[in-house]
């Protein structure tokens, strides 16, 4: 299959600390990639290197064969969008006004969004089934709805490649699954390539096509989710012992061994 984004021998150094070391992987259109790793393993830094927010100290990132170091920020933005971790804004913008900002890379420097841009913004909200949010105050909606609004902004920007930074952070049980299946739907219907940093191996197992396991800034394993997500790999990744506690829909479900023994002790109470 074609490769839409290629990350080759990427290194990132912050001062004297090496954050990322020799990261290489290819991204195919229409697939969901999950980056898993401990806190501080360099997941977010990796995402920010992929769309040029951070400049790698060595290595290249190529979009459709073009090195992003040679592209303008605007051009990169037309190919890659980013959904940041949940955030509050300082000004009480309306959701529609936040979503329409996704048109920024397509507007001239001095232009303001026109009717067509607002229509696209509205369409993105409609596609996610949240057009009722359009006229709400961005700071006054729930965390889940805010994440949807930011996803819509990214959709308006481009659905070619989407980077998601811990998209399910701060979301409740139900919203986590809803958001991820929405995103998975985009992969299938619009051939969006999604690269998301995630914390929960089971969630990655459920939604991701490919996983990239990052430990101390290095990839320890990557590939098809089913083949890569083994207890051995998860053990190394998090430095704990995990067990497979059964299958759900033909996919393994993992728990840390310590959690299991804790719950067994509780049973005796």
């Amino acid at each position: 299959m074609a490769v839409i984004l290629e990350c080759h021998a990427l290194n990132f150094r912050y001062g004297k600390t090496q954050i990322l070391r020799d990261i290489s992987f290819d991204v195919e259109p229409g697939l969901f990639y999950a980056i898993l790793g401990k806190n501080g393993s360099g997941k977010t830094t990796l995402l920010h290197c992929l769309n040029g927010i951070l400049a790698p100290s060595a290595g290249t990132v190529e979009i459709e064969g073009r090195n992003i170091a040679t592209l303008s920020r605007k051009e990169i933005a037309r190919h890659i969008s980013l959904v940041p971790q949940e955030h509050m804004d300082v000004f009480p913008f309306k959701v529609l006004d936040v979503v329409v900002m996704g048109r920024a890379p397509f507007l001239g420097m001095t232009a303001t969004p026109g009717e067509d841009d607002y229509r696209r913004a509205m369409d993105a909200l409609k596609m996610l089934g949240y057009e009722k949010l359009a006229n709400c105050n961005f700071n006054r909606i729930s965390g889940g709805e805010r994440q949807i609004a930011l996803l819509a902004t990214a959709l308006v920007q481009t659905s070619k490649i989407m980077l998601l930074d811990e998209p399910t952070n701060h979301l409740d049980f139900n919203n986590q699954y809803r958001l991820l299946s929405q995103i998975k739907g985009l992969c299938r219907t619009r051939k969006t390539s999604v690269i998301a940093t995630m914390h929960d191996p089971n969630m990655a197992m459920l939604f991701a096509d490919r996983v990239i396991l990052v430990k101390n800034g290095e990839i320890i394993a990557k590939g098809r989710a089913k083949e890569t997500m083994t207890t051995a790999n998860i053990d190394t990744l998090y430095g704990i012992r995990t067990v497979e506690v059964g299958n759900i829909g033909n996919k393994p479900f993992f728990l840390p061994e310590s959690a299991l023994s804790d719950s067994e002790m509780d049973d005796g109470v």
Partner: protein
Amino acid sequence: MISISNYRSKTTRRLVVFLSVVLVVLFCSSLVMGRFEINVSDIGAMVTAFFSGTAVGEDLVSKQLVFWWIRLPRCIMAVLVGMGLSVSGAVYQALFRNPLVSPDILGVAAGCTFGAALGLVLPGGNFSLVHILSFGFGLAAVALAVGIARLISVKPLIVLVLAGMVVMSFFNALLMVLKYFSDPFDELPSIVFWIMGSLSRVTWDDLLIIAPVTGIALTGFMLLRFRLNILSLGDIQSKSLGMNPAVFRSVFIVASSFIVAMTVATCGQISWIGLIIPHMARTLVGPEHERMLPVTALLGAIFLLGADGAARSVSSAEIPVGIITALTGAPIFGFLLYKNRGSGWL
């Protein structure tokens, strides 16, 4: 939904037209306001005399002097300064992602004030020296704040604000040194009066410098107003939306600092406008800079023109307009805080 964005731009347009009319009316009435009485028919006679090239009647000579050389430049200045300060305030609030920031956050006003005080104390100091020193020190203060922030280079926004505080306190301390050693009968009062902002010193020469710079900067801000929305999302978001926030920030900071430095160098410190007017505009039309920036400019002009009118007509001795803006600004700001308590920016 498209109708919503349409509806909003229509109401904004109506508000802009309304405020423009208010501004024009207020401008005309400001020309006849004040202790020295000039009425509408006098102005009519002066204007016809000006265009027909004939001399005005003897009774009008002094009125004509006051009108052409004092009142007209002063009113134009009030409009320019009001627009400049309020729009710079709005720009700074978006740039620093903080609705409580005003344009002198980087120490520009403190630097200007120190420079002016230095000019007043220096032997042989004349009026233009005061101006030049004030302007120079104002820009030096901003350069210092930005320089310190660049040296530190982590968390650019917060460090910039902190560096501004450092610079501001330093120049305030220097000002205190000057005040302490200045002659208490002659120099000290002139420093104190200079610090209280006033438009009474305005001349056509000042306007000749301020008008083009303010005009260019304001036009630039207006053209880039959608970009301010994106900048206000923060660096990571604006970068991933294809902008270069560092470049925009420097351009905006340099332009606003020029406006504020020139204003303080000619009129002293006129407080509160940069803080409250953007909030008023946001309350009226919402936080999107496409709509709020023009409203901010008009409101700023109206507010300062009105305050200056009050300053010269309330009592027989003129009150510095800085006192009026502070006296009215504080309660208005309190009211706006109360009014916007549910909107999510607190």
